[in-house]
């Protein structure tokens, strides 16, 4: 098995391309099927770590405080996300409860922690080869990406909110705003592709003169 340098294959139609030097915020598209080949994300790179840490703070607030409050004749009923998952489980829907738990609580947390770990790991450590956990969290981020559904959950809260206004007085909780912020932060953080850590690593090595002349 040998590495082919300087070439890249389209992930959707397998056409082979020579790697391009992309300018700031440039995107290279496949000329055959139109899929994205590469995207320059240097501008974003510096912001990912602080955004992930902000996301983690929002995540905690979003999960501790109630999302919606219901007022019926002086009685209050409020629901946190984990409380709702719990009542779904108690109603005999353990699988659906687990799905909601995974897509809105567990996976976003894994994503944020994995990103923080990837980016906060000292460069000195990275240079001496990637530890197994490093590769694992990089892959975890990509595999879990479609299964993190905070923004869809947010839309669900809005739909439930409107549905409930016809029954009783509904008040938005603190967690609702935190969920909004978390959805926004996760979206911006997810546009970062963990692949770029590897690419950066390669350019570091090349600078150090490790580059093989012509492969």
């Amino acid at each position, binding site marked *: 098995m040998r590495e082919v340098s300087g070439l890249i294959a389209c992930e959707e139609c397998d056409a082979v*391309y020579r790697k391009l030097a992309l300018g700031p915020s440039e995107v290279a598209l496949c000329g055959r099927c139109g899929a994205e080949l590469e995207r320059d994300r240097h501008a974003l790179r510096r912001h990912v770590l602080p955004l992930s840490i902000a996301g983690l703070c929002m995540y905690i607030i979003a999960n501790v405080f109630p999302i919606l409050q219901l007022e019926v004749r002086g009685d209050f009923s409020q629901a946190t996300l984990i409380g709702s998952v719990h009542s779904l489980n108690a109603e005999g829907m353990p699988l659906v409860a687990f799905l909601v738990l995974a897509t809105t609580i567990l996976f976003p947390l894994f994503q944020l922690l994995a990103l923080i770990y990837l980016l906060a790991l000292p460069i000195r450590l990275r240079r001496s080869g990637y530890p197994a956990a490093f590769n694992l969290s990089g892959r975890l981020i990509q595999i879990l990406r479609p299964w993190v559904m905070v923004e869809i959950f947010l839309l669900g809260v809005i739909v439930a909110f409107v*549905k409930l206004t016809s029954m009783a007085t509904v008040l938005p909780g603190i967690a609702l705003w935190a969920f909004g912020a978390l959805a926004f932060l996760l979206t911006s953080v997810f546009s970062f592709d963990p692949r770029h850590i590897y690419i950066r690593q390669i350019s570091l090595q090349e600078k150090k003169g490790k580059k093989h002349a012509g492969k």
Partner: protein
Amino acid sequence: MPANRTVRTVQPASQPPESGLPISGFSVQTAAKLGMASCPHCATLWEDVKAHDRCGRCGSGLSIRKPDSFNRTTAFLIAAYIMYVPANTLPVMITIPFLGKEQQDTIMSGVIYFWNSGSWVLALIVFIASFVVPLFKLAVITLLLIAIQRRSRQGLLLRAKLYRFVAVIGRWSMLDVFVVTLMTGLVQIKGFAVVHPGAGIAAFAAVVVLTMLASISFDPRLMWDVTEHEPGNPHESRRGG
């Protein structure tokens, strides 16, 4: 971040190094034809990949096509079709008010409720997310699989676009699952109303998860394999060796 983003459409490398294969018409050099496998994680290209080889850079498993893509996608799709029936006929939510009749809601009755109560924007959002998207997704993946089976060369670009679209929108069908979760969590007030989740929501969640798994296990490169001169058998996973 600069405000303007440049999009460059690039043309495939016609003459890759160390291979003087000619390019004719529609045919371009593909990694599979050159005996290369692209790492699904870090996009590094590798030559001479043997079965069960791992990417030397990030450790992901390497294969020329997603393993057993056609069969896996078909299996997930059939399972999704089966679950689609109870998802749309069984109630997803059962509301029991303190006074009055028990009310059973299916996916469509939720949409009709919003429409009648005047919030037609929400009616449209829920209708698209819960009804149009799953149906469209099932139809598109079926079409893609049939086209691969028939080795069709028609509408390749359109099919590539459809696949990309379906892969992005599929997750939004989870909307109704979250709505039912919140309603169950919130409306548990004895002496006012109690909301129970119905069996339909479990079936509906299964449809969403199964169609997502189908689109993840589908390998769009199989569509383009028919443009190759030596087709081989695109339905099987072709681990290099």
